[in-house]
């Protein structure tokens, strides 16, 4: 066959030559001309450094600082850049660690995906600023090590530990689930506002790309910082807390177990949220070398200082429940404000003494019944509501009653912006039917069996937040705004959730509130709650006493002033006895502090008395 294409060999050879020239040209550019890499003769790697954003700080409602940021240092190491001949003993001395710690910190499982000898990892975290200052001068002697600045929390006011919460390192599961938001060693809000507003506060991490030499030293920026991503600081949070009032409340609750919540009824803004015993927020600051020990100690403490009683504890509301019963009964048309119900020192049924009461004049109206907290009155009223569809139809009556409780915000978490809020409980008709069926097949229950609900005892449970919410609902004469801790963000127009503006009407007409409010006012003026009296502020309140294994719990909820209320307060003191003894005076001090700014000298003795009372001895 003739070979007419023989000349094509030259074209093919030229292609080979051209390709070779292109490769040589590229090699020349890389190795002889291009300065991108040439000037970094010693560079061995490009590394991505994380630039941490500063976490948003938290202010009180008047923009007084509650939580600030303090610098802290993480010592990072790249394993295969460590100088084998480094002065280990000096290194350990500077960092105040022993050689065993040094060795252990460097021994990682290189086969796992988590560690690589050429990727930096944390050698020692949370070095305080002062220790770092001493170490920094010698840092250059230890190739492979470098320092990363982090921010941890600082608390200048030492107040509001439970409200604020604390931050901790993320755990493995959070890292895996976060889709690259968190990396091992990052901080995350653990409880309180730090947890609720984690996404707002944390900001966004930035990145910096650098050339490093074989000793791990940064030589230069990669691409003159063009690829770098600056971090975005977290937003600063303005909370609804009033720092003074919060501190004052914590002082009042010293050496007592219980909680105080104060809020502004018209807005639902929580002014103070105290849970006692509390703790010093500085104890749980990352970087505090005693942090682990402090945490362990608090966790073991039988008084449970880490437990936030304001939202987590659920108690029977006791007599606090009576105003609510009155409201429902009037709305259901089962009770007229001027009704008289006789009380012979107890609630009697067919001549049997069933629920005891205390001595008081005969109650001729709803307000008087609230004033004297008459058990017989409210058991009677409650039974009439439950039996309004007939004595043999208590389930319809109870469900009707419960529908109101649900609208009052009971039996479900209210939706406060605070983690793991509890929902309390009210027993349903199904619950009783099932329960009685279990006792004896086919047995029916009736209103008499469940009469203690009328006085807030039995299966019914409320959180302190639900109690103060009920007080706010009465203060507003028929609606509440979901209690919340956020007021806004500093220098940001981001809106806070709409649900914290909405008025939730509870389905009780405003005319029915007057007898109840009057009764609560009279309770303070001349009833069970006289210890809450403040000369020139009209306080409306109701005491409660919840029986339990030890001494009774002392409860009080109230709002003030009567017209145009500014504050609603609930105080729950465990094992402190009758509601009027401790809870009521504490609430009155909170009201006075908030409305007047300080306690009248004439009432200082009361302040001193409360402050110094130690009720921890009463615990069972």
């Amino acid at each position: 066959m003739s070979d007419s294409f023989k000349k094509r060999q030259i074209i093919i050879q030229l292609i080979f030559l051209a390709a070779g020239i292109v490769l040589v040209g590229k090699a020349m550019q890389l190795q002889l001309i291009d300065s991108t890499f040439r000037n970094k003769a010693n560079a061995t790697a490009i590394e991505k450094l994380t630039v941490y954003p500063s976490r948003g700080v938290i202010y009180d409602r008047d923009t007084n600082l509650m939580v600030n940021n303090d610098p802290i240092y993480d010592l990072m190491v790249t394993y295969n850049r460590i100088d084998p001949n480094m002065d280990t003993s000096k290194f350990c001395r500077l960092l105040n660690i022993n050689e065993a710690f040094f060795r252990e910190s460097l021994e990682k499982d290189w086969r796992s995906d988590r560690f690589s000898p050429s990727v930096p990892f944390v050698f020692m975290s949370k070095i305080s600023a002062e220790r770092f200052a001493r170490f920094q001068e010698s840092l250059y002697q230890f190739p492979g090590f470098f320092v990363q600045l982090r921010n941890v929390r600082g608390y200048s006011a030492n107040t509001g530990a439970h409200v604020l919460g604390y931050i901790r390192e993320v755990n493995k599961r959070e890292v895996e689930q976060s889709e690259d938001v968190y990396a091992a060693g990052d901080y995350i809000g653990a409880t309180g506002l730090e947890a609720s507003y984690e996404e707002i506060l944390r900001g966004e991490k930035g990145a910096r790309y650098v050339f490093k030499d074989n000793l791990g030293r940064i030589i230069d920026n990669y691409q003159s910082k063009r690829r770098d991503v600056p971090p975005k600081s977290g937003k600063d949070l303005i909370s609804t807390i009033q720092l003074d009032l919060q501190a004052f409340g914590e002082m009042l609750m010293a050496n007592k177990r219980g909680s105080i919540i104060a809020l502004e009824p018209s807005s639902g803004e929580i002014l103070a949220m105290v849970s006692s015993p509390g703790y010093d927020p500085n104890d749980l600051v990352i970087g505090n070398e005693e942090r682990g020990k402090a945490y362990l100690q608090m966790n073991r403490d039988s008084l449970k200082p880490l437990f936030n009683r304001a939202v987590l504890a659920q108690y029977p509301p006791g007599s606090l429940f009576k105003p609510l019963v009155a409201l429902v009964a009037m709305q259901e048309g089962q009770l007229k404000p001027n009704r008289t119900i006789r009380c012979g020192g107890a609630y009697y049924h067919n001549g049997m003494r069933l629920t005891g009461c205390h001595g008081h004049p005969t109650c001729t109206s709803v307000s008087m019944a609230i004033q004297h907290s008459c058990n017989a009155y409210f058991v009677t009223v409650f039974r009439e509501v439950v039996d309004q569809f007939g004595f043999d139809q208590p389930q319809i009556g109870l469900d009707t009653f419960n529908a109101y409780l649900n609208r009052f915000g009971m039996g479900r978490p209210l939706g406060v912006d605070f983690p793991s809020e509890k929902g309390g409980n009210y027993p349903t008709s199904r619950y009783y039917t099932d329960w009685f069926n279990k006792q004896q097949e086919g047995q029916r229950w009736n209103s008499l069996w469940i009469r203690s609900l009328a006085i807030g005892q039995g299966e019914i449970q409320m959180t302190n937040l639900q109690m103060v919410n009920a007080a706010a609902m009465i203060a507003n004469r028929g609606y509440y705004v979901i209690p919340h801790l956020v007021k806004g963000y500093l220098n940001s127009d981001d809106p806070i959730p709409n649900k914290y503006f909405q008025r939730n009407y509870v389905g009780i007409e405003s005319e029915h509130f007057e007898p109840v409010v009057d009764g609560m006012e009279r309770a303070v003026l001349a009833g069970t709650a006289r210890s809450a009296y403040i000369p020139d502020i009209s306080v409306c309140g109701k005491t409660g006493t919840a029986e339990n294994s030890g001494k009774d719990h002392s409860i009080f909820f109230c709002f003030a002033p009567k017209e145009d209320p500014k504050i609603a307060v609930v105080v729950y003191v465990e094992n402190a006895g009758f509601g009027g003894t401790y809870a009521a005076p504490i609430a009155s001090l909170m009201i006075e502090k908030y409305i007047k700014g300080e306690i009248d000298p004439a009432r200082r003795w009361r302040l001193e008395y409360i402050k110094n009372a130690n009720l921890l001895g009463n615990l069972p």
Partner: protein
Amino acid sequence: MRPRGSSMKYMDWTTFSIYIGLISVGLLMVYTVDYEEATIAGNFFRTSAGKQAIWMVISVLAFFLITLIEWKFWQTFSYLIYGLSIFLLVAVLFLGTNIKGATSWFTFGSFSFQPAEIAKFGTSLALANFLSTYNADMRDIRTQFISFAIFLVPTGLILLQPDAGSALVFMSFTIMLYREGLSPIYFIVGGFLAGMLLLGFVFDIEYIALGLIWGFTLILSLNLKSRKWWWALGALAFFATGILFIQQDLFQLVILLSIAVFLLASLVVWRHKKGRLAFMLNTAVLVGIGISFLANYVFYEILEPHQQDRINVWLQPSKCDPRGSLYNVLQSKMAISSGGLQGKGFLNGTMTKLNYVPEQSTDFIFCTIGEEQGFLGSFGIIALYFLLLYRITIVAERQRSGFSRRYAYAIAGILFVHYIINIGMTMGLMPIIGIPLPFISKGGSSLLGFTVMLAVLLKLDANRGVG
């Protein structure tokens, strides 16, 4: 007549010397990469370099063994070898070991090999043999069809593994087909389509369309004799560009205008009795835009982000994360770059020691050459490959047997694609495709495979007077 059998006397010693040179460099480079390992392991023959040395000895022995085999054997059994390699390619899909997501290896104990290596050799033989049949003519459509089928069948099977790198190597047979008379039109069309595909990955479809239209309008206008048309088209182009610069919003208007101008130019050219050119360019615009659109669609709508990254690393590295997808190439470029003119010296590469470049002894072995031997080393290696390829074309052209010549060009093509892609990849010129650098990269089966290919060529050459 030359004597038959082992004819060392007639061996092409130039090619053989380059071969020995390349495998020696390979051994030294594998040794330097795994130097630390070598010092720890104690027994040299247990290290990577030790194993490579053993393979080197095996390969050289195989080389001489092949010179003992009757040269006609390869042509006689070429279809059988091809058939066997196709069988192995099918078998590996079912029986192979999955390594890094591709089922392309047979593993027997510590030994593993890729049937794709055998397929390269088998396809070279089969294609060379087919074209040597009496009535094969590359200008003939039937010959073209069968030739393409011979290398596209194994390509398809390899894509099923999937191993895009090895599949790409099979495109190298077009070099031999070109030498045998395949029309350049195929390369122009193929190049155009590939170009549009790549453009579609990178640019917005509007810009590609605009570029195509104006580029072809320029070609059309060059075919016009009348100067006044030149002026008219030039003015319109100027006007369109002006609008584009001043008012981005009028982009669609500019496109419409451009299309109108292009059609107008086509019409004028057609009137000038060059209807075929006008028709061709119009088709090209349509097909080109279609391909780019498809590429664009596939890139943004079908490819996963990590697949997009692969392409971006090659075509738009500035879009990639230097610690993520771009890391390998960056580290590789840094290592090569850090060698400077003279390099850091044998065993002195720092990036080598610290494992900063991935796959350093296999696919990225060129980094070590660049880092330790500098530009002089890089140049030397590239020059050595060029010399080898050039020498193979010389050897090819002196064959009296058409089979031997075709086989030689097939081998040249395979080596060419391997070395261009591999070295180009380490310097960021080519996409990251995991194919070894012939004779240098660590790996026994690849070394043995290339050795056999080259040995058969030299055996055929030694008997060139006989055919």
